[in-house]
């Protein structure tokens, strides 16, 4: 079946990219100045203790051995982790090692912070798509009118505004001046809807929903604005492009009403290419999430990454980078498959 073959091919490419990611991440640590062991050891520690710690971390081994252990560790850890998830047991280390600063396993620390980032990313994407597609369509179909100019200016400002500044200004205006929204961190008490959903406590998630929504509004707007602006521009220019094509004139020649031509024919063909661009731009979304978490002290993977970089906690940095990139690769495979499913022209072979 050609879908299966397409998936295998894409998965193979995905594995290659993940291997590339792991190699780059490992390379980053190797070229980093300073001795990784110093993070654990005070400067005036006596040599034997330093020897012992270096041996424990396996830093004394030749580089290729360290690399080999690192890669095989992950290669074994991830499938084992997946198996555990399926069986409902704790996920285990995934071969990502333990954090130097907290001593806990990297995988569990990343696992705990991932849902918060996902919440942000998904909310931003949902907000973006709900607003951007109709806005793009309206501005494409009635050109040189009010909504068209409005949408163009909004989308232009949207892609030109650094999201951290937008976040800061939203806090200043909406939280400080008019205190409509909480100023910062998702309070510990506020339930992470994702954690609850994952844990299956639907009822708890239900009544905690409103407070969660109240907390997530500003971060979601901050993160979603660039994305909304981008998709508005793409929808508008994609729509204008399609409207110029011969099959539109042929459809009108058939006597089809303009609204049918515009929505059933043109809009569908406009949305198909946007899927790939959205996939490509997800990287920007995750990047934006890292900054938004910094601005709003949102306890996501971005926070973990920045803190671990500042504290030189290498295993944590490696773990977060790998999880972010692998997640991104998986999402891209899903997006590609979706694109091929929706677009009959592109077969699976």
């Amino acid at each position, binding site marked *: 079946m050609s879908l299966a073959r397409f998936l295998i091919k894409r998965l193979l490419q995905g594995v290659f990219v993940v291997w590339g990611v792991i190699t780059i991440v490992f390379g980053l640590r190797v070229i980093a100045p300073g001795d990784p062991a110093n993070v654990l050891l005070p400067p005036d520690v006596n040599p034997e203790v330093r020897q012992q710690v270096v041996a424990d971390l396996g830093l004394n081994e030749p580089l290729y051995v360290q690399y080999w252990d690192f890669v095989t560790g992950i290669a074994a850890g991830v499938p084992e982790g997946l198996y555990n998830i399926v069986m409902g047991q704790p996920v285990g280390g995934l071969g990502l090692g333990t954090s130097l600063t907290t001593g806990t396993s990297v995988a569990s620390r990343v696992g705990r912070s991932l849902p918060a980032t996902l919440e942000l990313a998904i909310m931003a994407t949902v907000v973006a798509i709900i607003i951007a597609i109709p806005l793009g369509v309206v501005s494409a179909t009635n050109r040189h009118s009010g909504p068209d100019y409005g949408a163009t200016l909004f989308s232009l400002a949207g892609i030109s505004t650094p999201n951290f500044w937008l976040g800061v200004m939203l806090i200043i205006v909406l939280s400080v001046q008019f205190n409509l929204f909480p100023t910062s961190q998702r309070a510990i008490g506020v339930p992470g809807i994702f954690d609850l959903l994952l844990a299956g406590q639907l009822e708890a998630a239900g009544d905690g929903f409103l407070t969660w929504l109240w907390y997530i509004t500003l971060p979601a707007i901050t993160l979603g604005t660039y994305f909304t602006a981008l998709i508005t521009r793409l929808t508008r220019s994609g729509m204008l492009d399609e409207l110029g094509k011969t*099959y539109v004139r042929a459809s*009108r*020649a*058939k006597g089809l009403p303009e609204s*049918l031509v515009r929505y059933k*024919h043109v809009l*569908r063909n406009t949305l198909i290419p946007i899927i790939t661009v959205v996939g490509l731009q997800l990287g920007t979304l995750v990047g934006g999430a890292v900054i938004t978490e910094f601005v709003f002290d949102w306890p996501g993977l971005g926070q973990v990454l920045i803190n671990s970089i500042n504290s030189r906690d290498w295993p944590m940095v490696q773990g977060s980078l790998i999880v972010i990139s692998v997640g991104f690769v998986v999402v891209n495979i899903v997006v590609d498959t979706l694109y091929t499913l929706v677009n009959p022209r592109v077969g699976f072979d």
Partner: protein
Amino acid sequence: MSHTGHRDDLLRVEDLTTRFYTEEGQVNAVESVSFDVRDNEILGIVGESGSGKSVTALSAIDLVDSPGEVTGGEVWLRDAELAEEFRGESPDAVDGDFVDLRQLPKGVRRSLRGPKFSMIFQDPMSSFNPSLTVGEQIAEAVEVQRRASANPRSTRSRTQGYGLGKLLFDSVVPGREYTSDESRERAVELLDQVGIPDPVERAEEYPHQFSGGMLQRAMVAQALAGEPDVLFADEPTTALDVTIQAQILDLLRDIQQDRGMSVVLITHDLGVIARMCDRVGVMYAGEIVERGSLEAVFDEPTHPYTQGLLGSIPDVDDPAPRLEPIEGNVPNLIDSEMPDRCYFADRCPKAMESCLEHPEERAVEGEQGHTARCVLADGEYDPERALDESHFEGGDGE
């Protein structure tokens, strides 16, 4: 507005004028073109690229979109019901059974596309929506007519009872609500009538799974969905190979004869014109420069451009003679640069002083219905009063 016309005229186009307002300036694509289409006839419109032949067809059925615009002329269609309906509302748009479509509201003109007019295009692959099956797109054409005949009033409604919300939902999820089962069955029938083998399976396939020839047949099927009175065919076989072209021309001939439909065949290939058309119009620089029966135009070409065209075609049955090409280039139709003399004068071997004012369409002597927009139609070539080459040297010619 009374004018002479052949008693079984179906469509009379008079002084049709279309302008394109581009950055380079106003392009006079169609310049007061007049022609008529009779019942059960194939009318040929021949011309080289840039002559305005396609724009003429698009203007007649109101498919010119911005930056183009039909700025003048009348399109009279013989339709007793329509005449009755609008005799009261806009009396001067009605003359006997004829109605001037240009004076009717846009919604009415759109509702005529399908039942009265339909059009097929040059490149079949780009004339179908690539992400919908061929059967679905033909069924759509049938459905429009089915809904129109069900309640005529709604033909001019914006969505024909197919709500905007539904449309939006349908644009994401490829639903089939708009087309009913009957119209899908009719679509399969139409595919069969145009000679596409195993039509039931082919209806479920997408345009890119069809060959050029097969997809052109599907486009003809789609055009027949509304049982049109006049089928405009804009270079239908230009993109096809000669053996496939022959099949499509035969198909058009059979369909025209079986259904007694009129066809306006637009092409640059004089061979196709000779094989298919009863009457011919030759277009140059946005104007019809010669019009008449096939015999009249082919055997006694009056306008020097028609003579030049016939002289510059290699003959597959007779290789010998050296070709006599028409020197120079086609004018670019930008209004500011168009001289008010005969547009062909700078390339015409028989240009005379009298060609310096814009020629009118004149009847050719002794030839009923054979006209030419040239002084030679009813005058003789007089070498003394000829214009020599230098007269037009100013231009950036060869």
